[in-house]
């Protein structure tokens, strides 16, 4: 049983000459909800994408549930990030779920098929077993009436709830949200925040990149404020958002 779910140390990521993440270190413990806030272009999404293996890091360490995904090692006199074996990377990938800003549901599958797909293809569950699990998840998301609908027939809020169910279907150790409400109107945003809140009540470990500052303050245990690829301030969400110490944080939150 590990209490440390995610450890990130001195993470650095560049796209050719553009340094998006300069030097980031933080930990996430079991049951913790971490909020990441900051201006656009500060590297928040890239950070999540490094953790979920959608990007490869330029330098640094990422450890998930005690398994090292990537760490710096000496190779021919140079310090280079070295990734785990393919099997181990796949194993680690399944421990981390990701909910996208624009859902990325599979349009040619029904709601049920969307949630079933990875359970059947990746976890090798039988269709019956997968469906049973999916139905329970979709019920939790209040989508039982929509299981045979296609994504194009759903509202944005419903689509996002399907994508949360799809991520949960793999029973990840940690669920990452990349601005899950940015594509939604305020009403639908409330719908999604309610779902995330109920997951927090169940002690689901989560990392939430969000511009919903009030939500981050009320729901998250800890928070990071990022700017220009660095963590400017970190601490308890409540105090970081209500009483920011750093000038840059204060400026960002002054409009809130």
């Amino acid at each position, binding site marked *: 049983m590990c209490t440390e779910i995610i450890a990130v140390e001195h993470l650095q990521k560049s796209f050719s000459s553009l340094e998006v993440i300069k030097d980031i270190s933080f930990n996430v413990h079991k049951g913790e909800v971490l909020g990441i806030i900051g201006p656009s272009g500060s590297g928040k999404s890239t950070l999540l994408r490094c953790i979920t293996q959608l990007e490869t890091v330029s330098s640094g360490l990422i450890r998930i549930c005690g398994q090292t995904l990537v760490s710096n090692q000496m190779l021919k006199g140079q310090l280079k990030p070295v990734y785990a074996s393919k099997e181990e990377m796949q194993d680690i*990938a399944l421990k981390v779920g*990701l909910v*996208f800003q624009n859902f990325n549901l*599979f349009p040619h599958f029904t709601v049920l098929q969307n949630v079933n*797909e990875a359970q059947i293809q*990746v976890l090798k569950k039988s269709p019956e077993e997968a469906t049973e699990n999916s139905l329970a998840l979709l019920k939790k998301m209040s989508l039982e009436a929509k299981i045979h609908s296609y994504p194009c027939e759903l509202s944005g809020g419903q689509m996002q709830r399907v994508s949360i169910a*799809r991520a949960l279907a793999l029973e990840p150790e940690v669920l990452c949200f990349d601005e899950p409400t940015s594509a939604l109107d305020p009403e639908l945003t409330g719908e999604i925040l309610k779902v995330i809140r109920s997951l927090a009540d169940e002690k689901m470990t989560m990392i939430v990149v969000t511009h919903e500052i009030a939500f981050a303050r009320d729901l998250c245990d800890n928070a990071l404020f990022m700017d220009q690829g660095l963590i400017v301030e970190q601490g308890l969400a409540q105090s970081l958002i209500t009483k920011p110490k750093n000038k840059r944080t204060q400026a960002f939150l002054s409009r809130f």
Partner: protein
Amino acid sequence: MNSLLVTMLKGTVTSLEIFCLTLLFSLPLGLIIAVGRLSKKKLISSPIGVLLLIVRGTPLILQLIFVYFAPYYLFKLSYDRFTAVIVAFSLNYACYFAEIYRGGIQSIPQGQYEAAKVLGLTKKQGFFRIILPQVVKRILPATGNEVITLVKDTALAQVIGVAELFRVAQNAASKQFSTMPIFIAGVFYFIMNWVVSAGFARLEKKLDYYR
């Protein structure tokens, strides 16, 4: 009149054989070429680029002649004319299909690949279960165009002496001193393409259940 129709129907069968076999080989081959063209490895994508340039840059009629006669001049190897037709047609159409596939594959949003990856699907699973079905829907209209052209292009097979519909009609025309058989052939091609169009319309409708 009856014997004319019988010979023309025989020619039609040959045309349909060319049509079906070409589709059978070129549709999968096109996919392989498209994937190769999209490969990040220059060693794979560059030669395929050259192949596409040559095949799409020269007349099919010339390619038919080349495929049939080149082995003879180079290695004194002669083989069946019909096989040569299928080889040339399949390669030619595969290249056109490849570019259609490529356009379709590249039009799928990056997010679909990312969702597949985050859910732990392998590259192969992601491609065949998530990407390709969506590609098929998107490329149907363009593919329909090519398939209709193929029906008419089968007439080129006569250049290396395969007696398909058009050659048969021409022979009959010169025998009878009448252009009638040519026009009858035209009606035959039209009917075949009518069926092809209807088939594609049905396929499109079938895939209309999602956007």
